[in-house]
């Protein structure tokens, strides 16, 4: 449960740069006094915080702070002023009251596997690590729920529930490491969310601490609660509204049977078309994942799972339910694939083979990571009917930028994860990669999709938010945030861009003939 997962994640070895133009515009002399000032504050704050948490739970030396300087988006780094690692709700409340009184920004952090810089520290702020909140408080088999602390790992919940015939459905590929607190912040999904829903569909209630240190439970024991559905808005709010300190999740009965159908196609379009046909036939598979040829080759080399490396595209289609249901669905799905000119159809012969075939898919990111010095994972969602258009445009963009792209994605949901392969050691290549990524996200918006399906905006996609939302909508987001956090101390600068920032970004894009926010002054 440390920061390790960052290793298997995106854009690994990359030069450090700071997302916020911190002190860069100030003169050198100014910088020195700024730095001295910062150190003095760190010292004072560390002392004050030490009285609120147990010994050793405040980290303030450069060495101690280093593991926290980035999340899974390692291209962006910042050193927090200090880190606090509380282990009770009362301590979190005390810390929040303290932060509020001293106007200190607070960034919550789970396992740091986020891919959009959501847990990137604030240089003048406190990083609130929730790793010590790692206990499962209650697992109620009869009533089908688990009450857990926010730092519990996603997979740990299912592992604890499985002996009782239950599991927690959302299964991000990072589930071995990521925490349920982080999952709520990102509304994380997994390969099974086509049928079982995202985090928002599987969380019954959360207890949060507000920036004022107040404790609130959102959602309730029943299926709804009085007043506004604040649980809905809390989910996916990227640590901007409150800190989650306890979570009750729904546990589902493990399906008695799960079977995996692997279907190969000689074009990505044919595979995409087959996905539409499966849905049209009234079948909702438990998972429906697509990989293109570069991803197949990478995953096969990594996991040796028996993928046909000559296929242009591969679909993994999982069907689960009662034995009877699975048999009838396999028949129907196989028929649909045959109509869609499948070149090879294979049903995993054993549970071991099923798991092996999934292993290939789930390790696709690190597998692609072995093909190039670095890779950058993009996360847009599109209406599925736009799939072949978007894939074709991405191919053109890839050639234009001279950077290869591998595609693995949640095809059933239209959630794309293009992996751009690059070499951060080559000057300018990271920058070009980011530009290509931005182009892809803007393409997703163009076809009616979104800049992020499940990884969040964080700091990474803040500019692209300007393309997706107009000024009035962004302003509404800011005022909703202010309802929770009037001073803007929780995770400042993330998730929703300021209009100024959009104006700057807009200025960059004038040559495309588009000028968002023309009413704003340019810099």
């Amino acid at each position, binding site marked *: 449960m440390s920061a390790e997962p960052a290793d298997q994640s995106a854009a690994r070895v990359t030069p450090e740069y700071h997302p916020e133009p911190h002190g860069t515009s100030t003169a050198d002399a100014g910088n020195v006094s700024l730095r001295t000032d910062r150190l003095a504050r760190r010292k004072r704050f560390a002392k004050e915080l030490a009285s609120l948490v147990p010994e050793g739970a405040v980290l303030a030396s450069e060495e101690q702070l280093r593991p926290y300087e980035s999340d899974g988006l390692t291209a962006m780094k910042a050193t927090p002023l200090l880190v606090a690692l509380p282990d009770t709700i009362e301590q979190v409340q005390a810390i929040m009251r303290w932060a509020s009184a001293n106007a200190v920004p607070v960034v919550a952090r789970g396992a740091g596997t986020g891919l959009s810089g959501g847990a990137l520290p604030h240089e003048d702020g406190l990083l609130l690590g929730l790793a010590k909140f790692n206990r499962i408080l209650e697992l109620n088999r009869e*009533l089908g729920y688990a009450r857990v602390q926010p730092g519990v790992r996603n997979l740990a919940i299912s592992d604890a529930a499985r002996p009782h015939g239950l599991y927690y459905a959302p299964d991000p590929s990072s589930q071995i490491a990521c925490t349920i607190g982080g999952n709520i912040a990102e509304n994380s999904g997994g390969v099974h969310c086509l049928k079982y829903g995202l985090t928002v569909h599987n969380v019954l209630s959360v207890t949060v601490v507000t920036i004022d240190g107040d404790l609130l439970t959102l959602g309730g024991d029943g299926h709804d609660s009085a007043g506004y559905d604040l649980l809905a808005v809390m989910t996916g709010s990227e640590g901007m509204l409150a800190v989650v300190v306890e979570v009750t999740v729904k546990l589902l009965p493990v399906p008695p049977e799960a079977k995996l159908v692997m279907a190969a196609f000689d074009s990505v379009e044919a595979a995409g078309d087959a996905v539409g046909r499966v849905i049209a036939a*009234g079948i909702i598979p438990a998972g429906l994942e697509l990989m293109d040829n570069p991803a197949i080759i990478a995953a096969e080399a990594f996991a040796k799972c028996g993928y046909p490396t000559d296929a242009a595209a591969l679909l993994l289609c999982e069907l689960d339910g009662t034995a009877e*249901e699975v048999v009838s669905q396999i028949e129907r799905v196989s028929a649909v694939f045959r109509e869609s000119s499948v070149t090879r159809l294979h049903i995993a012969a054993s549970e071991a083979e099923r798991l092996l075939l999934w292993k290939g898919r789930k390790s696709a990111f690190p597998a692609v990571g072995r093909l190039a010095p670095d890779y950058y994972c993009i996360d847009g969602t599109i209406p599925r009917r736009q799939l072949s258009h978007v894939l074709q445009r991405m191919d053109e963009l890839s050639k234009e930028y001279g950077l290869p792209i591998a595609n693995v994605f949640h095809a059933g949901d239209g959630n794309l994860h293009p992996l751009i392969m690059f070499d951060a050691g080559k000057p300018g290549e990271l920058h070009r990669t980011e530009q290509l990524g931005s182009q892809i996200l803007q393409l997703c918006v163009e076809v009616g999709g979104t800049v992020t399906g499940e990884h969040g905006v964080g700091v990474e996609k803040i500019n692209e938010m300007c393309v*997706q939302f107009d000024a009035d909508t962004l302003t*509404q*987001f800011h*005022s909703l945030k202010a309802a929770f956090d009037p001073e803007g101390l929780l995770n400042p600068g993330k998730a929703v861009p300021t209009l100024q920032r959009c104006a700057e970004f807009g200025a960059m894009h004038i040559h495309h003939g588009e000028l968002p926010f023309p009413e704003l002054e340019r810099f």
Partner: protein
Amino acid sequence: MISNDDSAALLERVRQAAAADTPLNIVAGNSKHMLGHRQDVAQRAEALSMLSHSGIISYEPTELVVSVRTGTTMKELNQVLDEAGQMLPFEPPVLPASTLGGVLACGLSGPRRPFAGSARDYVLGTRVINGQGQDLSFGGEVMKNVAGYDVSRLQIGAYGTLGVLLDVSMKVLPRPEAELTLVHEAVPDDTQSFAAQLRRPLPLSGALLIDDRRYLRLSGSEAAVSAAARILGGEQLSAADAGIWQAVRDHEHAFFSNAASGMQLWRVSVADHAPALPVSGTWLHDWAGAQRWLRSAAPAAEIYKAAQAVGGHATRYGPGPVGEPAFQPLEGVMRRLQTRVRDSFDAQRLFNRGRFHPELDSLAASQATTEA
């Protein structure tokens, strides 16, 4: 099918109302007039009719998404989905004039709710007019989307107090191949008896307890439904008798019409396994015991207290004695936060003043900082 985009006129109306500080009561089919408070508080209020903003904007069955103007009637929407073999999985109630906007603003879901999810679970995107008369779009037409706060889902069940819902995109699902209902004898009001069935991998889609009868509905593939029916046993209802689901959903069942004078209808939302509440009256248990309908003459305060004691909340359906709130009153920090949320969308309290939690209407509450 009447398809008409009235958004420009609606926006203009809201802008004028904001400028003149004229409160607006958002109405469509008015089929849910019995829900929430009567809005006689706002004498000056004008009606903002949504009925002319109707029609299906786009529907792609293979995308599992339908985008609809909110003045569209449920009947019309259901018919279009039905023709493509699909449905709104949360099984919303359908009263003669119900519109999609009304269903979503009131956050209503039917018997399938505990098994398939609620109205808000199926909302993907919304277009909303806020209290400043701004035309805002949240979410979209795709299944997965974490760009910006999930304002679309926040709108569901807000009774229009966070804005006028113009257009909504919803996820739809294929209709199940087969469906059947089993009846068992049960102990009246014993909701605990559901627990054993709920944690088994059975294709359940409804669980009702009426008097000494427990009804379980199964939906799914032909094979799965008949296999589950063998496991559960019991008497199988004829197709005509299975109409009980629709009757309970739409409050056409006798339980809802046997109104003795002085009795009020309450909806109590609690955990399915919550104990029986110590309130005198008659009960009908839907959602495997998580949605309990109560006919009672007990005072509102007593019902709110009982619901709260088991971690739930209650809502009155229909008018009640003067001064008794129709929604579980919000208190303390929660009330303050929700008031600020209302501030952020409708600072002027333009929309549906008095209809929802009246405690969120008062602007002063947002300034109060000393409440516990």
